[in-house]
């Protein structure tokens, strides 16, 4: 039911989402525009408690370095001591600033760089043997509120997750995360489902996107229902000793997913056999039967691969 599916975050095959450790893909510009729209409507999606500014600079450095490394045609970072110049060609940005001096950037360091990086970002402060959600940029989330959870520790912000506390998942995960070393990031995948290709499925806007869940019919399953996969990675930050936790969301509609027969078979079995608590938590209940019925026609009963990693 649950797996602590954590592995080292190392580069994967060319052309895959893991070709670079921070993935910049063909949706870059539109996702950044989507983020700007969400922030204009609700600035509370980006918050940083006062002690987290240094961690914000750590994150700025990490994302500039990784994006420039992976996509030198789009991003260039040049450094002369603390005088930095950042060129972001897709967004038409060319800024010179002093690293560590917030007055030289138009936003705080975390907000500045995460307005230019795909995925949500949570920065966790490490103290008292725990991790504290003390800063974040969260505009593409699966139904959790940064504004509500900011300042909570690892167990508190995961409090609503069913069954996993009892199974010791979070105790083990916390032990792992508090021992992440600099230069050795880790990753895991998480998943849920989203109706229509929406990035912003926040609780703040639940009354706006929630009605989509009533619109699924046997005829439109393939187009409306999306598998949402989160690539979560975990990085130690060098100056602040915080952890940054990027949550990158990828959406694929059922019509696209079932072009791979093995994926169709597996997803059918996963959705069919998911415990009720998890189906409720993931918000699938209203359309689960329709989806399972649709996927069942694509499952001939033949075996799938071994699963994780295969």
């Amino acid at each position: 039911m649950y797996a602590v599916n954590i592995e080292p975050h190392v580069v994967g095959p060319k052309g895959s989402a893991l070709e670079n450790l921070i993935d910049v893909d063909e949706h870059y510009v539109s996702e950044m525009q989507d983020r700007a729209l969400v922030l204009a409507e609700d600035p509370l999606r980006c918050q940083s408690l006062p002690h987290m500014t240094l961690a914000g600079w750590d994150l700025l450095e990490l994302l500039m370095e990784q994006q420039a490394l992976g996509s030198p045609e789009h991003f260039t970072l040049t450094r002369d001591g603390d005088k930095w110049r950042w060129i972001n060609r897709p967004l038409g940005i060319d800024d010179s600033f002093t690293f560590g001096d917030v007055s030289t950037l138009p936003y705080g360091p975390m907000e500045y760089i995460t307005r230019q990086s795909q995925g949500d970002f949570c920065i966790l402060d490490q103290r008292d043997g725990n991790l504290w959600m003390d800063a974040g940029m969260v505009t593409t989330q699966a139904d959790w509120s940064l504004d509500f959870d900011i300042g909570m520790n690892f167990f508190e912000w995961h409090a609503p997750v069913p069954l996993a506390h009892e199974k010791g998942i979070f105790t083990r995960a916390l032990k792992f995360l508090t021992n992440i070393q600099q230069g050795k990031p880790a990753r895991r995948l998480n998943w849920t489902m989203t109706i229509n290709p929406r990035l912003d499925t926040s609780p703040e806007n639940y009354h706006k996107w929630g009605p989509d869940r009533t619109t699924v019919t046997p005829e439109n399953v393939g187009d409306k229902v999306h598998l949402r996969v989160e690539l979560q990675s975990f990085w130690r930050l060098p100056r602040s000793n915080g952890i940054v936790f990027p949550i990158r969301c990828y959406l694929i509609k059922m019509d696209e997913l079932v072009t791979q027969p093995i994926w169709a078979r597996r997803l059918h079995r996963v959705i069919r056999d998911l415990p009720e608590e998890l189906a409720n938590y993931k918000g699938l209940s209203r359309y689960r039967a329709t989806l399972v019925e649709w996927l069942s026609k694509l499952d001939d009963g033949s075996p799938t691969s071994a699963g994780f990693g295969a």
Partner: protein
Amino acid sequence: MAAKSIISRPVYGTLSPQPGKHHLFVADADGALAITDLAAKAPDGFFADAHIIFIPGNEGQHVAALEALKPAQFYQGPSFASALPRLKQTLANAHMGLRPYLAGTEGLIGQAMQAALEAGIDHTSIQTEHRGSLARRVQCVHCKGITESVTTQPATCSHCGLLLLVRDHYSRRLAAFQGVCINAEDRSEIPPAEEIFR
């Protein structure tokens, strides 16, 4: 005591005298009884370094019992909001060795805790004891407005009017439980409200 719940929901204890130079009590209504119970266990002279901030509420009880403890400072206020500037100033001027004790309704404990957190006091060093109403402060996740003294499930947001499921998920920073629209997917579904937080 409230029923066992999720990890973010606060757990309250029983006030007991702590080592410290100054003792700051914030209580409402029957929270006063937690203070007088503590007094029975406290060493002589304990209240000579104590400041009690008390909001008696509608019943208006327990004032004489608290005054009889002869705290160095005693304040009686008509509402938490009216006591807050004094509480904030006390916390801002506090030195090492100040021990906070909070007792009474969840709303009172939560809001006094919030003021203490903002003053840099660690929540684990604050004594709390729940007495009286289980009514909840609820933040509407949609409009961000806080509705006070919620006793029903579901409850109507007093700001935007959405019908909210009152979750056990709790934020110390906001001193509030989370309210999420209960019929967001289909507004025609209107579950009956039950009075469960009394």
